[in-house]
């Protein structure tokens, strides 16, 4: 599995180069990777269906219980196949979609996302999962903002990132609490300790935090608003990330952790209630959209709500329904998004309310839309029908809330029915006016919708294709026990069937009266302005305002004040601690100093004095360099050539840097006043005095450190080096060094960027 993931990330690295090809070709070439992975994971289907789980693990941070481990069972496998299978179609489609512009960067992020999403569903450790989780948010950010010159795209990208990112932080905190409650971060371990976790004191906070993560990612009310905004993304992205895969990550997480966290009252109430509200709200809002993509986005909100709702109920039927619905939704929604993309691409409009007769123009696309639309409406013999029946059964058999849940489910589905009708009928078959010219779409465009649409039909007629393998396997993972899964179109006349007929009838009526209903509701849109999207904007404004104020206060840009505040704090706190503490200090006998030592000390003092007294900046800086060189000489005398060499080099480069900067500054025009110099002097003396005291205090405690002994002993046998300092830097504490050079790189990048900006401003 690590191999499979690496393949995707390697593909991401190759994407910018492949992007120089005509992007149509790049799409085809890149699609080979997810295609190969689809077959790779299909090969695991047998083993997983037999009830085996495949695991792989590499130690990562063993000390903290964090491993790079993978866990493949029925649930992960189903999501994996969705990602790779739909991913293949998306890459092919995107190649055509971007045929005018070079798409290297787009393909890079799309590949990164594919890898991250695979990692997310394969992760066997909560921290591994979290890392991939965040990576999907980040790649989603870049993908939404593909058209980064458009302000609305940038805003939508940031909104999605902030909402899901905030949820990600909650999820991280929740996982850590869960790890404490369960005694392990490994999902495989946690799955066997559900009982212990649920009775642990940390259960409730862990649950709420993890739910916050899942709800933001899966766009549950009140966090749903980012998903419609994210429709600024190019359509392949909306189809892949914002309907089939990434938004289902939250659903996946709930399903994955359901055996650990689920079944309690807190779980059922929160998850089922939020899911129920989202399900209904999404469906209602979808019907009144006029933009095809926003309509699809709201219906995705509805679908995600449905899955969450069913997972919240948590009975056998409900879980089975949730799993089936993941598949149902991916098939029809993927197809419909791709259709919307073609319509947008070839007609330049995504409006669904104005009638057009696009069936004549693009018959294949329109037929795919019909197939997918019928599945969305939940009509037999499509897979969507099986899904809808199961939802009704799940809601009917829920052990609580009585008739409320079935009512909500029927309401949502009849709105969904009307939405599907609107989406398919008006653009493709509406009106009687002019007939657009006939035109065969390129194969890249109809391949995806056609395959997904036909699958909706095929799986509906032959549910045996998936029920005993994919669905049964995934259901078993969520319930932690095996149940027989036999899907069928016809269950006899039962309550769910009757509700289905009711949905159909009411749905037709609702569609017929949609426009008049919309006019009635126009007044209500004013309330929408008070919705969560406004809360988001408001809190963002407060956050930015606070940031501006506190930056003005602390980061005012006056370097001397920075240094002043820093030193005052250090000296004040340090001296306070020092004189409160019990540690003493010794005064060494200064007469013991050797001539060479005294000379160096004299040099340092003289340079320091020069740097204060000099009326020229350049001289002051060079004198400061002299102080540094003096310190380096001390290192030489006490046998630390390495440190000394570094110090020499750093001092040299620093002076060069200063010279380059000072060169541009005017010479001192006005020297500081006597009082401010007095103030600076006192602070300088305080800080210097503190450092001196500290050094003297260290002398008193002696310099026995177990660490230096350890490093000295282990440097050669463990690190293969005789230079302890270097072995520490590149081996023992290599991770620290890595962090440091990353900071150095960022600093370099930052300065470079600032200089560039200034240059552009100047001319």
């Amino acid at each position, binding site marked *: 599995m690590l191999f499979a993931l690496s393949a995707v990330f390697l593909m991401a690295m190759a994407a910018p180069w492949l992007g120089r090809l005509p992007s149509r070709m790049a799409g085809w070439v890149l699609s080979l990777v997810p295609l190969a992975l689809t077959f790779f994971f299909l090969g695991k289907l047998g083993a997983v269906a037999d009830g085996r789980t495949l695991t792989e693990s*590499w*130690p*990562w*941070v*063993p000390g903290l219980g964090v491993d*790079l481990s993978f866990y493949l069972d029925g649930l992960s496998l189903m999501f994996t196949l969705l990602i790779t299978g739909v991913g293949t179609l998306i890459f092919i489609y995107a190649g055509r979609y971007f045929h005018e512009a070079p798409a290297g960067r787009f393909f890079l992020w799309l590949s990164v996302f594919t890898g991250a999403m695979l990692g997310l569903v394969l992760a066997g450790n909560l921290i591994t999962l979290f890392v991939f989780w965040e990576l999907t948010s980040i790649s989603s950010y870049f993908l939404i903002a593909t058209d980064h010159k458009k302000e609305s795209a940038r805003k939508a990208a940031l909104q999605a990132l902030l909402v899901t990112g905030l949820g990600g932080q909650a999820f991280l905190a929740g996982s850590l609490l869960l790890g404490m409650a369960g005694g392990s971060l490994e999902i495989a371990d946690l799955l066997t300790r559900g009982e212990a976790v649920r009775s642990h004191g940390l259960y409730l906070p862990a649950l709420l935090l993890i739910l916050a993560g899942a709800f933001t990612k899966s766009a549950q009310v009140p966090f749903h608003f980012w998903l419609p905004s994210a429709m600024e993304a190019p359509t392949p992205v909306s189809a892949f990330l914002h309907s089939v895969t990434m938004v289902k990550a939250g659903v996946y997480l709930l399903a994955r952790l359901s055996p650990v966290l689920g079944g309690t009252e807190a779980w059922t109430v929160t998850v089922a209630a939020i899911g129920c509200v989202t399900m209904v709200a999404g469906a209602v809002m979808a019907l009144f959209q006029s933009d095809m993509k926003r309509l699809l986005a709201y219906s995705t909100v509805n679908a995600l709500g449905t899955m969450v709702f069913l997972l919240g109920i948590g009975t056998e039927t409900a879980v089975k329904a949730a799993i089936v619905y993941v598949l149902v939704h991916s098939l029809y929604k993927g197809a419909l998004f791709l259709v919307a993309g073609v319509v947008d691409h070839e007609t330049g409009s995504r409006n669904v309310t104005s009638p057009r007769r696009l069936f004549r123009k693009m018959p294949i696309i329109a037929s795919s839309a019909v197939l997918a639309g019928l599945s969305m409406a939940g009509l037999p013999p499509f897979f969507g029908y099986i899904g809808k029946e199961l939802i009704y059964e799940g809601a009917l058999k829920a052990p609580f809330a009585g008739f409320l849940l079935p009512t909500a489910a029927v309401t949502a589905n009849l709105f969904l029915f009307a939405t599907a009708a609107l989406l398919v009928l008006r653009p493709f078959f509406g009106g009687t006016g002019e007939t657009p010219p006939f035109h065969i779409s390129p194969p890249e465009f109809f391949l995806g919708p056609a395959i997904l649409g036909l699958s909706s039909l095929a799986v509906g007629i032959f549910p045996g294709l998936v029920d005993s393998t994919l669905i049964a396997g995934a259901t078993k993972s969520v319930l932690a026990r095996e149940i027989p899964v036999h899907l069928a179109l016809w269950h006899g006349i039962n309550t769910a069937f009757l509700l289905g007929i009711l949905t159909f009838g009411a749905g037709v009526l609702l569609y017929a009266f949609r426009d008049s209903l919309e006019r009635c509701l126009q007044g209500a849109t004013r309330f929408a302005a008070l919705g969560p999207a406004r809360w988001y904007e408001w809190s963002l404004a407060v956050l930015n305002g606070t940031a501006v104020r506190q930056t003005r206060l602390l980061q005012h840009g006056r370097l001397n004040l920075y240094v002043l505040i820093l030193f005052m704090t250090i000296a004040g706190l340090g001296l306070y601690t020092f004189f409160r503490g019990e540690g003493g200090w010794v005064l060494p006998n200064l007469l013991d100093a050797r001539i060479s030592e005294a000379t160096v000390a004299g040099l340092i003092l003289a340079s320091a004095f020069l740097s204060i007294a000099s009326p020229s900046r350049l001289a002051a800086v060079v004198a400061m360099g002299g102080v540094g060189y003096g310190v380096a000489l001390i290192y030489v005398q006490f046998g630390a*050539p*390495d440190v000394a*060499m*570094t110090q020499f*080099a*750093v001092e*040299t*480069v620093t002076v*060069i*840097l200063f010279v*380059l*900067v000072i060169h541009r500054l005017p010479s001192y025009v006005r020297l500081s006043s006597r009082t401010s110099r007095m103030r600076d002097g006192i602070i300088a003396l305080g800080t210097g005095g503190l450092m001196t005291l500290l050094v003297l205090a260290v002398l008193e405690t002696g310099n026995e450190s177990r660490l230096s002994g350890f490093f000295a002993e282990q440097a050669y046998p463990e*690190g*293969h*080096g*005789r*230079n302890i*300092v*270097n*072995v520490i*830097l*590149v*081996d023992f504490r*290599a*991770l620290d*060094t*890595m962090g440091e*050079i*990353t900071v*150095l*790189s960022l*600093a*370099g*990048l930052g*300065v*470079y960027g600032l*200089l*560039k900006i200034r*240059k552009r401003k*100047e001319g």
Partner: protein
Amino acid sequence: MKSLILSTAAKYLLPMLLLFSAYLLLRGHDMPGGGFTGGLVAAAGFSLHGFAFGMSDAKRLLPARPLRLVGAGLLLVLGSGVFAMMKGDPFLTGTWTTLTLPGPGEWKIGTPLLFDLGVFLVVIGATLAVLLGLGRED
């Protein structure tokens, strides 16, 4: 301002400083030196050249743009860490092997050397990105 003494000295000093920095880098594991110091020495060498002949001339001498060097360095560091993972060890575990070469005889090489080379490149790149940027429009 051009100075004959400076430019003549720089002409000879730059290759020597670069050689010295490579020497520092390679011996670093056993004797004083290392990627950080080596990188600073090389950066100082290039900026000396820049003072004598102009920063754009120094930039021309670089094998790649400074920020590319930074990127390459970071990738090397990452690679040296991931190498251990491919063997099943934790990230950044040092891996060593001894080569027998006709010239210097036994020569041990390992991923920490790669790591140090990465540090070296990052230091050169980041320092020069700043120095060359500051000294440009003269």
